[in-house]
């Protein structure tokens, strides 16, 4: 029997705020979190782009040392949002350690800040001392560092799914976590992703000519998803987590239910590792609806992946039109904060939940003139107060991985899907 999966906690660290209140305020006011990239004294001078989605708040990661010592920045953020989500959900230590609660969490890499220090020690002309690498450096930089720092800090003994897939890391985390609960393998899953400030990630996109470079002096004007004057993506940092739970156990606990995940689909284009593929993206959007057992006209809002690349936005607009027509409102939330890579799926899910709760949808920022090739979808022109009953959150990654998550407003009266 397939079980219903609800959301009982959500928390995000983003370039537009690290609290629900701040995030909502900046969304409503149309304030961008994109600014000048921080100088790393290594690569920044060589980059063509000078913009980045920066988390400006100086957050205190005051965890006890016994937990901190295996964390790089990417895990600090991960554990911070998970701590918040656990508190919101009300799940106690006994439940967390029961084996029925798991973690699906990832990042693009382990901590690159730690890796850079290790390699600098390795290649430094001044030192060939391998013991400049500390005992914990591998633990901080291994690719599943976020997921297992979470299990360690919170005593979680259930399944661990750590699927680093760049831009689909956290949307896959949510989707795989949803499936764990839906099919009875786990009763709750902490799902999400984290991306730390890292100029090598920026350099990758910069070298591919995919980064925005025309707005270096006016960072808040980029990225510009679907806009005729868009010129590429802006990399950002952030983290997000959601608590997914089986509906009946959440009800028994009296947990506050923020929304429901009713469908998930993921596929691969089976070809080019960089360019998006119309057929592959169209297929995953169809599969998401099939999995949710709803029709396209039941979707009120689509959080588009919309990185503001020249080709990606066109492919996405066409695929949305192929599947949804021009019925649902469409918004590119990366326009507010840049592309938070591994964290984008969960952050965009959380922002969608916030809007679902508040009853409004925000427009794509910097969408001054819609590119004709992206005009076949229903771009929201300004902030609108409107109900979101069902929403789709879609993300696509290097490697040709595509995801579609379907969310529904939770109704206490609803007894079946």
């Amino acid at each position, binding site marked *: 029997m397939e079980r219903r999966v609800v959301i009982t906690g959500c928390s995000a660290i983003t370039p537009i705020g690290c609290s629900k209140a701040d995030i909502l305020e900046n969304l409503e006011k149309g304030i961008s979190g994109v600014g000048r990239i921080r100088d790393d004294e290594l690569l920044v001078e060589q980059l063509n782009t000078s913009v980045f989605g920066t988390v400006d708040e100086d957050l205190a990661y005051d965890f*006890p*040392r*016994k937990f901190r*010592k*295996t964390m790089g920045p990417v895990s600090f953020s991960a554990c911070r949002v998970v701590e918040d989500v656990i508190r919101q959900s009300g799940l106690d230590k006994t439940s967390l350690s029961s084996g029925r609660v798991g973690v699906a969490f990832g990042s693009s890499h382990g901590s690159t800040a730690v890796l850079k220090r290790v390699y600098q020690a390795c290649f430094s002309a001044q030192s060939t001392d391998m*013991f400049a690498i*500390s*005992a*914990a450096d591998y*633990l901080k930089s291994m690719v599943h560092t976020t997921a297992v720092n979470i299990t360690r800090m919170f005593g979680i003994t259930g399944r661990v799914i750590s699927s680093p897939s760049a831009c689909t890391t956290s949307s896959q985390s949510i989707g795989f976590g949803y499936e764990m609960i839906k099919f009875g393998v786990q009763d709750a899953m902490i799902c999400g992703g984290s991306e730390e400030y890292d100029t090598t990630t920026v350099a990758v996109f910069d070298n591919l000519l995919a980064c925005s470079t025309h707005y270096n002096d006016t960072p808040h004007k980029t990225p510009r998803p679907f806009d005729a004057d868009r010129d590429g993506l802006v990399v950002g940092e952030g983290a997000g987590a959601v608590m997914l739970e089986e509906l009946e156990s959440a009800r028994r606990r009296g947990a506050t239910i923020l929304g429901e995940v009713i469908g998930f689909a993921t596929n691969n284009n089976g070809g080019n590792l960089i360019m998006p593929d119309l057929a592959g993206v169209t297929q995953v959007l169809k599969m998401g609806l099939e999995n949710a057992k709803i029709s396209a006209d039941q979707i009120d809002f689509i959080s588009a992946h919309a990185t503001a690349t020249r080709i990606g936005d066109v492919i996405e607009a066409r695929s949305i039109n192929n599947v949804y027509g021009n019925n649902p409102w469409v918004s590119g939330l990366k326009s507010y904060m840049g592309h938070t890579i591994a964290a984008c799926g969960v952050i965009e899910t959380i922002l969608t939940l916030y809007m679902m709760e508040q009853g409004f949808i925000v427009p794509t920022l910097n969408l001054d003139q819609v590119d004709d090739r992206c005009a076949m979808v229903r771009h929201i022109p300004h902030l609108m107060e409107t109900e979101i009953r069902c929403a789709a959150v879609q993300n696509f990654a290097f490697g040709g991985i595509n995801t579609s998550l379907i969310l529904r407003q939770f109704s206490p009266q609803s007894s079946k899907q």
Partner: protein
Amino acid sequence: MERKKIESTIIDFIETNFEMSDVGVDDDLNAVHGFDSIDAIELLREIETLMDGKLTRDEEEAAMGIRTVRQIVDFIEKAMADRA
């Protein structure tokens, strides 16, 4: 280096860097203070700094059985004597 000085240096290092408090000379560091294998490796590096020299592989493996500050100080004294 005198034994008392070694002892105070080690306790100070553990309390400052590992954020452990009131470390007694005969405390089981793992059971009482949560000292683990990661801390042990970092402590070995500090011992090498104190001795201004590298530990051998055999010495490092022998060190893995240490449980108290008293045993750490005994270990350092022996390592220094072996090199004298």
